[in-house]
């Protein structure tokens, strides 16, 4: 969000500068092109906008590219009352609008008078294509890459010749390769056999979808047997690479799904696993964490990137406190009666849900993804991993090891384990088990809250968020073996990957069913999960 505003501002600034530059020569308001542009853009007819873009491209107008940018950003508005073109950042009452031709500032009274000059996809592509051609000469490799991709397989010969031109002067290896591919795509269609041979080789090494398509087309069309064979060999090679990367991708998906499961379950692993409290309200604690993220973002709308980081401790505290309240208010009266706890906490979960409905309305809430979390890490055209998932995997591991440390290294951890193994004895040793219970439950709930922050980045933040995860969480904990958070980690990841491996051939639903059935059977085999607690402590 922020970045986009900045972008606009500099764009505006740029525009103004240019205006000043051209000012003495002639007033912008009597530039025939711009005038026609305005009439075309304010018209409600789509075709006119397409015309407007063509007009700009042909006219080679000096402002063309700034205007393109602003159009793509959707900053052009027209006022229904005077049919004039304005530049508007936010179409809200009180905001200012800059008149496009004679840049006078007007304040918006009735937002609905200002209507965005909206482009459709066709028009966006149209503009992007034009802009791409200049992108070829940009400094950043990224932009040049994008430009080449954009122009690849672009029918108009103009584009191709541009690439050829750029190719000779291109220094960066990757971009060069890409350009080579782009050229090759064209060359295979030519008749010079030697050149075609080289082209096929180039294409065979590339994973670009367009390259593959070019080869496929070539195979289907050519009547030159040897070339055909060569191309086919190339294709097979590509297919194998793709298959490999697809496998890699599946594993990655599995891990990221797994990490979500682990995050959701790990709080439970503590409350349920270590304390033996069946907390049916666990899902709602996750939900609370997610809503905390939402509230934080409302409080700091201009620092979305930061807000998520702020939300983590905040969610921990909020959910933690709610958890402690639950423990003090209800659960502590029910120790040693796990099944009653189950019922009571289920009641609490209902209350929390409805509470959220009444406070935040039953509608889902928007939680924005910070720019640093969006985007992909691209290894090659067929294998790229999504950043938000990557962060979640890392985050999951961090949380996990942090917990491990707390339980293994800190005094609290020691006391927790002591109480969970032998309450009476621990008491005798002077451990204030009451307090320990409170802290442990708080910890577990807090972790649930943190999970909520992560979930708010990939799924919807609504009153039903919790219910969606509670059962899975229990499955993970039980599968992993109660009282063993390593088990939770392994179980979560295993289930995640298993799910993803099965999904392609079984379908999402069946995969989930199979996993459940597997768990049921597994529990028959090892009633205490993957990593059971042994010895007398585990009995009863």
């Amino acid at each position: 969000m922020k970045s986009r505003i900045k972008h606009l501002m500099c764009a505006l600034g740029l525009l103004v500068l240019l205006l000043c530059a051209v000012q003495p020569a002639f007033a912008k308001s009597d530039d025939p092109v711009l005038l026609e542009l305005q009439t075309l853009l304010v018209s409600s007819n789509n075709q006119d906008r397409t015309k407007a873009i063509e007009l700009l491209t042909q006219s080679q107008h000096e402002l063309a590219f700034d205007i393109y940018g602003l159009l793509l950003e959707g900053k052009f508005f027209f006022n229904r009352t005077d049919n004039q073109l304005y530049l508007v950042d936010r179409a809200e009452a009180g905001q200012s609008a800059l008149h496009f031709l004679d840049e006078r500032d007007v304040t918006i009274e009735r937002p609905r008078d200002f209507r965005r000059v909206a482009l459709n996809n066709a028009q966006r592509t149209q503009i992007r294509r034009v802009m791409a051609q200049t992108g070829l000469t940009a400094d950043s490799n990224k932009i040049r890459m994008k430009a080449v991709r954009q122009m690849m397989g672009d029918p108009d010969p103009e584009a191709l010749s541009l690439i050829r031109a750029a190719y000779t002067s291109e220094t960066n290896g990757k971009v060069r390769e890409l350009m080579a591919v782009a050229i090759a795509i064209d060359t295979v269609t030519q008749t010079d056999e030697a050149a075609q041979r080289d082209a096929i080789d180039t294409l065979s090494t590339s994973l670009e979808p367009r390259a593959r398509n070019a080869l496929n087309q070539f195979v289907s069309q050519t009547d030159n047997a040897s070339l055909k064979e060569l191309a086919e060999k190339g294709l097979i090679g590509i297919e194998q690479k793709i298959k490999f990367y697809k496998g890699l991708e599946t594993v990655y998906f599995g891990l990221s799904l797994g990490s979500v499961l682990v995050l959701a379950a790990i709080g439970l692993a503590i409350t349920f696993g270590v304390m033996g409290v069946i907390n049916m309200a666990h899902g709602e604690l996750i939900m609370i964490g997610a809503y905390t993220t939402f509230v934080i973002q409302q409080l700091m709308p201009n620092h979305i990137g930061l807000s998520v980081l702020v939300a983590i401790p905040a969610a921990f505290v909020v959910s933690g406190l709610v958890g402690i309240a639950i423990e003090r208010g209800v659960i502590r009266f029910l120790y040693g009666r796990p099944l009653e706890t189950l019922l009571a906490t289920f009641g609490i979960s209902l209350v929390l849900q409805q509470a959220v409905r009444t406070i935040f309305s039953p509608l889902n809430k928007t939680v924005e993804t910070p720019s640093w979390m969006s985007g992909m890490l691209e290894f090659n055209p067929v294998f790229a991993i999504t950043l938000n998932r990557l962060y979640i995997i890392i985050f999951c591991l961090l949380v996990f090891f942090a917990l491990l440390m707390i339980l293994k290294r800190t005094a609290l951890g020691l006391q927790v384990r002591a109480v969970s193994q032998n309450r009476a004895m621990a008491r005798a040793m002077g451990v204030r088990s009451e307090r320990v219970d409170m802290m442990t439950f708080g910890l577990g709930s807090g972790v649930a809250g943190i999970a909520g922050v992560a979930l708010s980045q990939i799924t919807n933040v609504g009153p039903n968020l919790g219910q969606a995860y509670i059962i899975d969480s229990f499955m993970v904990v039980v599968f992993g073996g109660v009282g063993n958070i390593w088990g939770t980690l392994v179980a979560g990841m295993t289930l995640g990957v298993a799910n993803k491996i099965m999904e392609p051939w079984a379908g999402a639903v069946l995969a989930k069913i199979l996993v459940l059935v597997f768990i049921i059977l597994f529990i028959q085999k090892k009633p205490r999960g993957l990593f059971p607690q042994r010895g007398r402590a585990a009995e009863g």
Partner: protein
Amino acid sequence: MMLWNLIKEDRGGQILLLLLAIAIIAVPMLNALPPDHALHIPTYTVALLGKYLTLALLALSVDLVWGYLGILTLGHGAFFALGGYVMGMYLMRQIGERGVYGHPELPDFMVFLNWDSLPWYWTGLDQFWFAAILIILVPGLLAFIFGALAFRSRVSGVYLSIITQALTFALMLAFFRNEMGFGGNNGLTDFKDILGFSLQARETKVGLFVASAVALALGYLISRAVIQSRLGKVCVAVRDAESRARFLGYRVENVKLWVFTLSAMIAGVAGALYVPQVGIINPNEFSPLNSIEIVVWVAVGGRATLYGAVAGALFINYAKTWFTTELPDVWLFALGAIFVLVTLFLPKGIAGLFRRKEASA
């Protein structure tokens, strides 16, 4: 006489059966009164009461395993729903040519998923007797297989609760799939008639109500018979000191298995009676949340009393009807509060309030 022995020491049971008897006679009469009469019970109230009774029967079946065997099942809704689905399939077959597509055999949803013939598991269900058998058999079989696995490997307590939950959850997902041939999310609906009586007819509704009441009474007596027998005592023994029972030479897993199966069958019957009265069965009945709610009815009524379960089911469901009509927004708050308060302050449930000192286990 033998029947009397079953409920001799069971005041709650006596009262319950008495009330049922009264209802069976009174409700149809009051319903037959002219609508403007002060005591007239509208037909839809009759259907409503009928529905409550089936749910009470369901609660009864849960109390049998939870109250007396200590198995907290969070998946009993599954058996209820299965019984319901069998009945639903029978009712679908009864529609015959009256479906919107007028197909003589296929239910509408199959026609519009372009199925050309009935799946094998739908065959024979146009016969009521066959359906009736399956209503008992299908839930019973599932319970038997599941129980055979679980009890034998001594899965118990929380673990058992959670895998019962997994069971019903898996079934829910499965029934949501349209390929399964059970109507997917829409489930089975738009029933026309049962045993040739139109489901819309007042008489049929009253009939179903009576049937439900009778079923509940029978269910109660059967459960009671089990509880009274030495098996009942063994159940309690298993609940309170499982290993002791083992060292006395009892095959705990068999005891659990058979009682669990019986309870599943009762639940199935309840489901079968429920469906024609509400007019629809769909995968939501498998939802784990429903199953938990059932347990709460029992907890509210009072575990290990049977009549408590019935009372709890009636109470909560009446409350649900009332709240969702009068104070929709408060309903979940109320339900939640009931859960918490009962578990905290009424561990013995409503029945506990009135039970004599030496509880009849």
